[in-house]
């Protein structure tokens, strides 16, 4: 549109009207001074003259007061709000210099940073260090002064207090007497001067090792001592070294007055370790040790033995490092078999070793050659004689319970034999030579026990004559009684026939069951008889 704005926000300064803090000296209850204008924008516009209560009061207004609760909050404008105090062209009272020159404070900062003062504002290329990342964020609280004590802590300088040496009177209240003798030299800064000196000290050579440039086999040397001396000298050496080291550290400590007592203590401790008198408890301990773990040796002997062990150890170490068998195997870039070495070398040890090696090689070669591939190792298992003999019990025990069922394994019925004999005899005598198999189950009916057919046939033959005679009478001339008799006779016949049928059925069923049993044991299971 091109409409001209009343206010261009980028070229204007914005102030907010806020309530003034109560602790501000300018505060009063009148409506004129219970509020204050606080600038809230960051535009590069200078308005120092605007809304100044006094001419120099702008900064105070900006930060309220040092004691207000917001005083240590980071500034919204950034700490370098002064950087933006360039004047855009005009009008403010601050423009006393020539046009284009930098304000004094800007120039000061540039000079401080080491840039030349040539009228160019180098600060525009510099960024203020802020806590924008990189791990932990450091909040620089300008109110934090590490040297100063917080208000609830009181420190007293006691470096010049002389504590008199105790005369053996350690009463409980001595600490209070000490405290009462101190001067109340209250301190506000409590950095220990020694600690401060240490912190400032950049010379680290003091903490280097006194024992420098050790030889490579310093352990062996330390163990064996110098030139093969006895264990005592070795021990002494160790002890002396120890003591030297401690001395060195003690010397270091001596330079600091505060640690002198500690140094003394260390020395005393060292001395006491060696010169402690034997107490009753020590003797008791020794006696107990002897009893429990004891040999017949005396105390001194034990110690001597231990010392000897150490000596042996030291010697062993020495020897181990001296053996160096590898050095003997000097091949001179020529391949040598063990036999050559055997003949060529002179030292007895190596001769033994090589001889041994050769022997073992020969053994292995023999075993390898003699081994044949076809050998099979047969494992023969002897069978005991007892297991050859079977008896009923053992046979039955070899069956599983599926077969070894009392219902299945039973002695065949004795009574059947007699009946069988009867039927067989009966059938044989009456019939022809062919044994006929009848019925669904194809059973030799004549030979079945309890077969009533054989007997029934006889009865039938006998009984069938009588009704046939009656049937010859006339059809219409039957008397009632004859009719009744005839009917009764018919009924009887039928009932008997029914009985017979039922009996036969039962018989068949029992017989097939028997046959099934026999077939189950002996015959293949595919035959189904029922």
């Amino acid at each position, binding site marked *: 549109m091109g409409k001209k704005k*009343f*206010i261009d926000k980028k070229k204007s*300064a914005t*102030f907010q009207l806020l309530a003034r803090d109560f602790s501000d000296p300018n505060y009063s209850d*009148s409506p004129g001074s219970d509020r204050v204008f606080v600038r809230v924008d960051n535009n590069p516009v*200078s308005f120092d003259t605007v809304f100044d209560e006094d001419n120099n009061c702008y900064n105070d207004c900006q930060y309220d007061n040092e004691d207000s609760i917001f005083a240590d909050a980071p500034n919204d404008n950034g700490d370098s709000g002064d950087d933006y105090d360039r004047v855009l062209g*005009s009008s403010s009272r601050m423009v006393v210099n020539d046009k284009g020159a930098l304000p004094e404070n800007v120039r000061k900062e540039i000079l401080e940073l080491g840039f030349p003062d040539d009228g160019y504002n180098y600060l525009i290329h510099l960024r203020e260090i802020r806590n924008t990342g990189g791990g932990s964020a450091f909040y620089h609280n300008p109110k934090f002064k590490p040297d100063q004590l917080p208000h609830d802590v009181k420190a007293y300088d006691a470096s010049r207090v002389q504590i008199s040496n105790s005369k053996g009177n350690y009463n409980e209240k001595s600490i209070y007497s000490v405290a009462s003798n101190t001067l109340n030299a209250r301190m506000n800064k409590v950095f220990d001067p020694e600690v401060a000196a240490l912190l400032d000290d950049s010379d680290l050579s003091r903490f280097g090792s006194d024992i420098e440039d050790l030889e490579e086999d310093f352990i062996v040397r330390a163990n064996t001592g110098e030139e093969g001396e006895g264990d005592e000298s070795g021990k002494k050496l160790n002890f002396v070294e120890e003591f030297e080291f401690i001395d060195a550290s003690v010397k270091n400590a001596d330079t600091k007055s505060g640690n002198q007592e500690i140094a003394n203590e260390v020395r005393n401790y060292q001395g006491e370790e060696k010169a402690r008198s034997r107490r009753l408890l020590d003797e008791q301990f020794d006696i107990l040790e002897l009893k429990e773990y004891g040999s017949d040796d005396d105390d001194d002997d034990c110690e001597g033995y231990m010392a000897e062990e150490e000596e042996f150890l030291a010697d062993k170490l020495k020897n181990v490092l001296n053996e160096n068998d590898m050095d003997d195997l000097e091949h001179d870039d020529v391949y040598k078999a063990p036999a050559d070495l055997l003949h060529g070398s002179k030292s007895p040890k190596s001769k033994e070793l090589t001889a041994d090696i050769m022997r073992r090689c020969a053994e292995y070669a023999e075993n390898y050659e003699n081994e044949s591939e076809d050998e099979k190792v047969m494992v023969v298992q002897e069978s005991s004689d007892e297991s050859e003999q079977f008896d009923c019990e053992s046979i039955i025990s070899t069956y599983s319970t599926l077969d070894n069922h009392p219902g299945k394994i039973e002695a065949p019925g004795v009574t059947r034999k007699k009946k069988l004999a009867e039927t067989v005899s009966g059938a044989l005598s009456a019939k022809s030579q062919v044994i006929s198999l009848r019925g669904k189950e194809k059973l030799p009916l004549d030979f079945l026990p309890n077969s009533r057919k054989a007997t029934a046939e006889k009865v039938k033959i006998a009984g069938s004559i009588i009704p046939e005679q009656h049937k010859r009478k006339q059809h219409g001339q039957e008397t009632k009684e004859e009719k009744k008799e005839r009917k009764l006779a018919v009924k009887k016949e039928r009932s008997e026939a029914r009985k017979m049928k039922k009996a036969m059925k039962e018989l068949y069923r029992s017989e097939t069951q028997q046959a099934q049993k026999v077939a189950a044991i002996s015959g293949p299971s595919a035959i189904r008889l029922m």
Partner: protein
Amino acid sequence: MTYAPMKPTKPGYEEPHEQIRKIRITLCSKNVKNLEKVCSDLIQAAKAKAIRVKGPVRIPTKVLRITRKAPCGEGTNTWDIYELRIHKRLIDLYSTPDVVKQVTSITMEPGVQVEVTIVDV
């Protein structure tokens, strides 16, 4: 505006602190009554000082709404709507900052935010 010159050219020229500038006072509030009261007070004071005032421009109120499901009542359409209305007024002045300071030193109602924007001229 035929008042003091805009740009100083000679050093040492003493310019008055009071220079007519364009000043915009923005008033924001959540309740209209207080806002209107403050507005009218400001305009009255400004007119008493005989400075050009452009009357309260009422910016459309912004309504911030939050809708939630009502805790009581079942079924559909049981919602609670909460809203917050923000009213804004603008007052434009042509005066010096000092005058503006006096003008704004009036009793203020609670809940009214005052912002003063001065154009750098």
